[in-house]
């Protein structure tokens, strides 16, 4: 058994410090009130102890002033906690635009990580220090959750959807990855390591790694192999809408609804094409469920994101 043990996880990301501060703030406020109330009760039970068997307490019913005070003060303190927490939460939900993309798919009971340059890992994730990293998460079977305590980030991997989390590592080192949503027999074995390296070491590692093609290359290959290109021509002559600039644009559907074409929209269109049909087109796109894995989906999405409109005045997409 180890003789010394940590009380805090390593602080290895840009949000970790703020998260620890928020934690300490709430602990301090709560400790203050807990000690205050306990001390007051302890004091009262001694000072006002029953001195004769028939003694009764004083005839006191209440005090509106006190009630308002001890309602208002906890309310204000809790709003401070809420405000700080909400701001941190928004920060955690807003990856910077220049973030490096990683794709992670969970399946019972392992994590499959793919770097955009093509290198793949199982239960390990190498990342460079000082660069924001955006992880796109998928699941092949049941709910999982990607949790890195040292970075203070966590997000469920939900089958049928795409979720994201982001971080920027600040300390070189090796840290735990845990699955944090119960997923069956080897839930506690679905763990790994995130290895944070200096940018040079990271490039070196990347270059030495076996590449099976970048995500975008794989996506492009799938786009051809699955015959997407037959209907989704770059101009409007195809039976399906052109996908140039589609990612991030607003799409109008046959029933008049307008939706933003985000990753989940693209994923749904591939897996369940009848759900949202673009206005002006027929519902003839076949479904590819069962023909593509979660990883394939992420690769196709990565590829489609690179499709930019031909004319510079188009103004759509990124």
């Amino acid at each position, binding site marked *: 058994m180890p003789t010394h043990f940590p009380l805090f996880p390593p602080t290895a990301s840009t949000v970790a410090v703020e998260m620890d501060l928020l934690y300490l703030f709430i602990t301090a406020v709560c400790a203050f009130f807990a000690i205050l109330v306990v001390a007051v009760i302890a004091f009262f039970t001694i000072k006002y102890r029953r001195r004769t068997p028939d003694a009764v307490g004083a005839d006191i019913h209440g005090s509106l002033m006190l009630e308002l005070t001890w309602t208002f003060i906890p309310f204000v303190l809790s709003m401070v906690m809420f405000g700080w927490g909400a701001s941190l939460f928004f920060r955690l939900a807003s990856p910077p635009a220049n973030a490096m993309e990683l794709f992670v798919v969970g399946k019972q009971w392992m994590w499959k990580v793919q770097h955009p340059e093509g290198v793949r890992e199982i239960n390990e994730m190498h990342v460079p220090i000082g660069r924001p990293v955006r992880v796109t998460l998928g699941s092949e079977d049941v709910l999982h959750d990607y949790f890195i305590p040292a970075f203070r980030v966590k997000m469920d991997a939900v089958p049928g959807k795409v979720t994201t989390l982001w971080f920027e590592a600040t300390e070189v080192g090796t840290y735990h990855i845990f699955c944090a949503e119960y997923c069956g027999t080897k839930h506690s074995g679905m763990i790994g390591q995130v290895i944070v390296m200096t940018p040079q070491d990271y490039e070196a590692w990347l270059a030495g790694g076996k590449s099976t093609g970048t995500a975008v290359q794989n996506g492009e290959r799938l786009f051809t192999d699955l015959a997407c290109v037959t209907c989704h021509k770059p101009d409007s002559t195809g039976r399906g809408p052109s996908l140039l600039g589609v990612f991030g644009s607003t799409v109008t559907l*046959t029933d008049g609804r307008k939706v933003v074409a985000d990753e989940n929209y693209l994923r749904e269109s591939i897996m*369940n094409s*009848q759900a949202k*049909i673009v206005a002006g087109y027929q519902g003839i796109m076949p*479904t590819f*469920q069962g023909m593509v894995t979660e990883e394939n989906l992420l690769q196709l999405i990565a590829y489609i994101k690179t499709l930019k409109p031909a004319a510079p005045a188009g103004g759509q997409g990124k």
Partner: protein
Amino acid sequence: MADVHASTAAGTGVVAHDVHAHHPRQQHHFYSMDQQLEASTLGMWVFLVTEIMFFGGLFMAYLLYRYWYPEAWAAGSNHLNVLMGGLNTAVLICSSLTMALAVRSAQVGSRMGQVVNLILTILLGATFLVVKYFEYAEKFKHHLVPGVNFDPALPRPEQLFFSLYFIMTGIHALHMVIGIGIMLVMLVWAARGRFGPSYYGPVEVSGLYWHFVDIVWIFLFPLLYLLGAHLGHGGA
């Protein structure tokens, strides 16, 4: 407040236990038939609130998926038999009428009125269930039962529609069966002259239950059967 006698424990007065004739149907823990009737009625209303919450979960699932998959929902709705559904709606509304008349008959002490109206209510309820049986059989024939024989050529979310269709109408039908059971008991009791102007609580609260089951159907019918026509689309 009545005159109270001081006792050794000050603050609560005591009066001698009232000796008055109890109605034979008054239960011992109530002090009057009025209190008993009020308690039973409030009890049934509270129970109906729990039923609203129970069906409410189903309506929530329906609402979410209808918002996400309007075309599959329209297609599913168009696969339902509006004629049979409409007939069942009329049958249930009539049964609510006969139920209300049965309660009224109990309140005025008409044994014949109670018996006739309860029998009619039961028959109408049974008719509903028979029509339901034929409807379900038709769904089986047309490959519309999820998990059993659902037509793979149909859009996949339509299976969600049919799952909810069978569960919602199935649970409703289960409540109808229970309702008919309750009415049979009421019928036997009414025929034996148990109810009258001074005691009609059980008929009244059974009536409340029956009306509730009817109202659930009034919501189910348009949401399930009339949706396709409303959304104006044909099937996929």
